[in-house]
């Protein structure tokens, strides 16, 4: 009986030696990504907290810790309070509308019909095109003189004459009147997140087993009943996920408000992200800016925890 041939280690495998030790290789492969994240997300995040506790400005970026003063200063600033209120108002209102609309839209897109790809492409545009460019389109639609919405209202006689529903002026000034400016921002937020929520819900709807619905049909369940006891409970996790991600994206968004109103008229549409930018970058007050941005963190932490829980639960099912 001959022993199995043991080949002498060739120079090649010698060199590859380190890479063949599984634990070492694993660490080597993971290291760049982890280092990047620690250096470019972890460290800046800690720095943001330090800035918020300091008196740093762009002129004097040294870290002199002054305690919680910046948070107090932010809270006593009336513009900050408007920004805080708006951030919640815009997020919750737009997401409530998105949940309802995306549900209806996802149901419709589940059906087979001709020209589905083009309808899908058009509906997804607000999410797939760069948001700053889409919002520029809205800026032109909300124009104080050439708004097509105003034109249609004038054409229908609802604007621009003494007896008109919206008054005798020729334009509504969408971005110039506080109430309308707030509505305008919320509309664009809905427009932006609707495609995302729809795609998430489509995934949820198509994962409901067909035979479950067929069995319910055979058992004589009415469509209403089927929705109530099958579709809603089974898709609730998915709807929640869509809702939570919609919150993350809307809550932290700067683009829509920045491009549409710059926070105006007189700060009435300011949100936390834009106010962070105006204070911290344009105003050069790094400490204030960091403190304002950190007011977003508790909400994000809660949402992240909820997303984790949802994801875990659906994985088990």
């Amino acid at each position, binding site marked *: 009986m001959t022993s199995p041939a043991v080949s002498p280690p060739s120079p090649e495998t010698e060199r*590859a030696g380190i890479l063949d030790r599984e634990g070492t*290789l694993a660490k080597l492969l993971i290291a760049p990504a982890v280092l990047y994240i620690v250096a470019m*997300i972890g460290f800046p995040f800690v720095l943001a907290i330090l800035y918020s506790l300091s008196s740093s400005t762009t002129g004097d970026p040294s870290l002199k810790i002054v305690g919680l003063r910046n948070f107090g200063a932010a809270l006593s600033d009336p513009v900050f309070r408007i920004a805080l209120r708006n951030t919640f108002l815009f997020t919750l209102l737009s997401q409530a509308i998105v949940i309802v609309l995306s549900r209806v839209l996802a149901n419709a897109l589940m059906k087979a019909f001709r020209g589905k790809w083009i309808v899908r492409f058009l509906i997804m545009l607000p999410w797939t095109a760069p948001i700053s460019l889409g919002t*520029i389109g809205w800026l032109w639609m909300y124009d104080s*003189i050439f708004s097509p919405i105003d034109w249609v209202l004038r054409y229908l006689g609802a604007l621009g004459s003494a007896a008109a529903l919206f008054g005798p002026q020729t334009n509504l000034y969408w971005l110039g009147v506080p109430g309308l400016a707030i509505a305008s921002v919320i509309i664009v937020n809905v427009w932006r997140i609707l495609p995302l929520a729809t*795609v998430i819900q489509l995934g949820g709807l198509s994962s409901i087993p067909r035979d479950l619905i067929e069995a319910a049909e055979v058992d004589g369940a009415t469509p209403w009943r089927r929705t109530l006891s099958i579709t809603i409970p089974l898709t609730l996790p998915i709807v929640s996920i869509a809702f939570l991600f919609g919150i*993350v994206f809307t809550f932290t968004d700067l683009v829509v408000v920045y491009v549409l109103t710059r926070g105006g008229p007189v700060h009435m549409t300011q949100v936390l992200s834009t106010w962070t930018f105006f204070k911290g970058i344009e105003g050069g007050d790094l400490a204030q800016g960091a403190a304002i941005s950190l007011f977003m963190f508790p909400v994000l932490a809660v949402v992240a925890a909820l997303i984790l829980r949802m*994801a875990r639960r659906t994985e088990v099912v």
Partner: protein
Amino acid sequence: MASLGKLARRGGLYTLLGGFAFFSAFPFYWMVIATFKRDHDLFSPLNNPFLFNEPPTLDHLRLLFTETHFAGYLTNTLVVGLAVVAITLATAVPAAYALARWARGWGETLGIGIFLTYLVPPTILFIPLSRFASYFGLQESLWSLILVYPTFTIPFCTWLLMGFFKTIPKDIEEQAMIDGLSRFEAMTKVVFPLAVSGILTVVVFSFTLSMHEFIYALTFISVSAKKTVSIGVPTELVRGDVFQWGPLMAGALIASIPVAVVYTFFLDRFVAGFTMGAVK
């Protein structure tokens, strides 16, 4: 009677979808109109704004490419996008592979930890990162964007690829090693080629997200010639206080549509990825 009801339901479905498509796509239709409309037609409040009251023109497009930095914005976007794709691939592919292969308990946890950093928004990080940029002298340089954009591509792409690598059976590389490949070669020569569709997804996603990005670009870059399309078009195509609506809309349209077409093809995969596989 039954077929009449069916017809009505069809009609209802098309009306509903038509309404949604109108809402979603109208701003882009509005860009098309402004792009090709003569200024005289565009700025007459009494003209029907939805139609061409005067013959269409290519003037705005000519102006956009000859008298603005638009072509430069496109080039900058391309340069930044490709560099970010390269950095993302070089870090996320190996990390995802390792997390998927060797990871039992801690790999999964580390993977989720990496994914969660994706939820730390640029709106919190841009203040400290703007100090980084000025500390390293990278303000007004595309390098600042190239180095910062991977902060949102790496976490997500690592997570996405982890899912891909998990679907490739371990037997395949074990067989390759029995056939004489080293551990490392089994990974690079056998497993990576099998994950090519996942890698392609990551390429498209990294590029798309880089192109969409706004806050960092707005914060780091203020010299017109260095801007990317997402900030160049909204901030630069304004002469004084006057918006150049024609060229502005043309620029927004041209930069939006190609990326939207590509993104649409990959949308389902991205969404499945960032809902952490809760949606399949």
